[in-house]
């Protein structure tokens, strides 16, 4: 294993131990999806075209999205608060790899939402788990998680470079939730919004996961969704890598790595 991968793995493990006892992220992973999942099940279950897997997948995505939005936008400022930002910045390790590893730890933690969402569907409401394409769902989940992690990586330097933007990021939770079609089809929204949704990795995550779980998408449809998942996530990751360099350069010029 190369040094960078080992560092990323260690960073993920360190952060996993920290977020596992973080009350706010526990709320994002457990309580918020529980509320979303249960209320949506009650709202939709009497409809003739009701598909419980749609709610399960949407609930899981909402938990993963919220966790990565909050953790990503606070990833660097959290290090500053704990006084470790200077130590990370003054170490020879790549700052991008360190924060990337840490956010990967949070991403793994956010998968608790998926387990919870299945629990809501099967245990709480007694629906059987019926996944049309389990293998494709696994691939979709993997790619969705990578793309959402990349989105979190994009938010991390953005929130530090432009603090006002950072504050606004926190209110993106519901708009992206709605624009991505986690629990309600995007087709319900006006047509002019569709191009915007196509730019969002969470949208393609929802398309791929819903499509694989319900079997509504054939392989070519899934391949298209996977391609755009990787493309949108990849673009954000490339921009993020530049912004990470900018964060450190600006902080070294302005002297803002420490709190004091």
């Amino acid at each position, binding site marked *: 294993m190369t*040094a960078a991968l*080992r*560092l990323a793995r*260690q*960073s993920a493990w*360190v952060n996993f*131990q*920290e977020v596992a*006892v973080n009350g706010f992220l526990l709320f994002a992973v457990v309580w918020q999806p529980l509320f979303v999942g249960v209320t949506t099940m009650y709202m939709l279950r009497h409809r003739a075209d009701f598909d419980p897997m749609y709610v399960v997948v949407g609930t899981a995505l909402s938990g993963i999205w919220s966790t990565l939005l909050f953790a990503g936008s606070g990833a660097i400022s959290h290090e500053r608060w*704990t*006084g*470790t930002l*200077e*130590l*990370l*910045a*003054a*170490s*020879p*390790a790549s700052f991008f790899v*360190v924060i990337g590893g840490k956010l990967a730890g949070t991403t793994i933690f956010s998968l608790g939402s998926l387990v919870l969402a299945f629990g809501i569907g099967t245990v709480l409401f007694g629906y059987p788990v019926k996944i049309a394409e389990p293998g494709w769902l696994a691939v979709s989940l993997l790619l969705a998680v990578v793309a959402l992690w990349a989105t979190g990586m994009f938010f991390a330097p953005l929130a530090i470079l432009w603090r006002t933007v950072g504050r606004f990021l926190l209110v993106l939770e519901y708009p992206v939730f709605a624009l991505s079609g986690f629990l309600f089809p995007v087709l319900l929204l006006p047509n002019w919004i569709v191009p915007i949704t196509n730019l969002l990795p969470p949208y393609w995550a929802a398309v791929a996961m819903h499509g694989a779980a319900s079997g509504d998408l054939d392989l070519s449809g899934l391949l298209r969704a996977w391609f755009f998942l990787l493309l949108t996530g990849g673009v954000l990751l490339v921009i993020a890598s530049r912004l990470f360099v900018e964060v450190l350069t600006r902080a*070294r*010029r*302005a*002297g803002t*790595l420490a709190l004091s």
Partner: protein
Amino acid sequence: MLRDSVGAIELRDVRRLFRTTTGTLRRHAKEIVALDGLSLEVGEGELFGILGPNGAGKTTTIKVLTTLLIPTSGTASVLGLDVVRDAKEVRRKIGFVFGGERGLYYRLSGRDNLRYFAELYAVPPREIPPRVEELLELVGLRDRGDERVEGYSRGMKQRLHLARTLLHRPRVLFLDEPTIGLDPIGARELRRIVSQLHEGGATIVLTTHYLFEADELCDRIAVIDKGRVVALGTPDDLKANVSDLSVVELEVFGIDASTVERLRALEFVDSVVVEQRELRQVLRIQTRIAERAVAPLIAAVAAGQVGRVAVREATLEDAYVRLVGRVE
């Protein structure tokens, strides 16, 4: 022990400005000069002290040398590597400890903190476990290494910081007020470790407010004020600057500012420092006439207000007061 004169660290005319704003409705930009053409050289294997009042530029100097700040102008190098151009290479060769308790992962154990920082410094995986144990032993935390850092005392956290900074065997160490806030025993233990590291050949730059600490540990000391070096030399060199002075210490009760000013105006008085100790004050008066100054000083204060009187030789602290002209 000064090993040789090869420059481990060089600062040449380093200036560092900080921009800040004042005002609420109408904001005005303001520039603060933290370093004002600072030049210094530290030899390899040297234990070099930087003294100065708050805001003198000590921490800024350390942050420039540890690559955390880019100088506004001038050049700084560590082991021949430019801290701006070769920042990554510099980082591999240095270690640093900033005073205070922050900078550790509190929910992890001390041992896990060290393992993680070893990864950050790319210590080969096979070397990490023995190195971590060796350092926990050095700083006296081996038995408590599995406990979460959040339960550590301040002194334990400081010692863990020191262990952290030694993981990759840095050639140059920067210690910025490492004993700040420690109890006397904890501080003495930390000084012992610093001494030991120095004996082992490390180049160490130490900033401190405790002058006896600098006197005890440092080969050479730079006193800086307003971002410039105002004195440089061995502790004995600096003390020699005040060899003509003696210090009269007067323990007094309830004297006012005007009395202190009156003392300062006396022709034979070089400086007066007031230290508040609960209800008492201790006046440290530097003078060239030693014992002969005692009677006129007591008369100037008013005899009824004076308790203990002592006359002693000037120390490094007195040299510092003379150089910097004030105390915090």
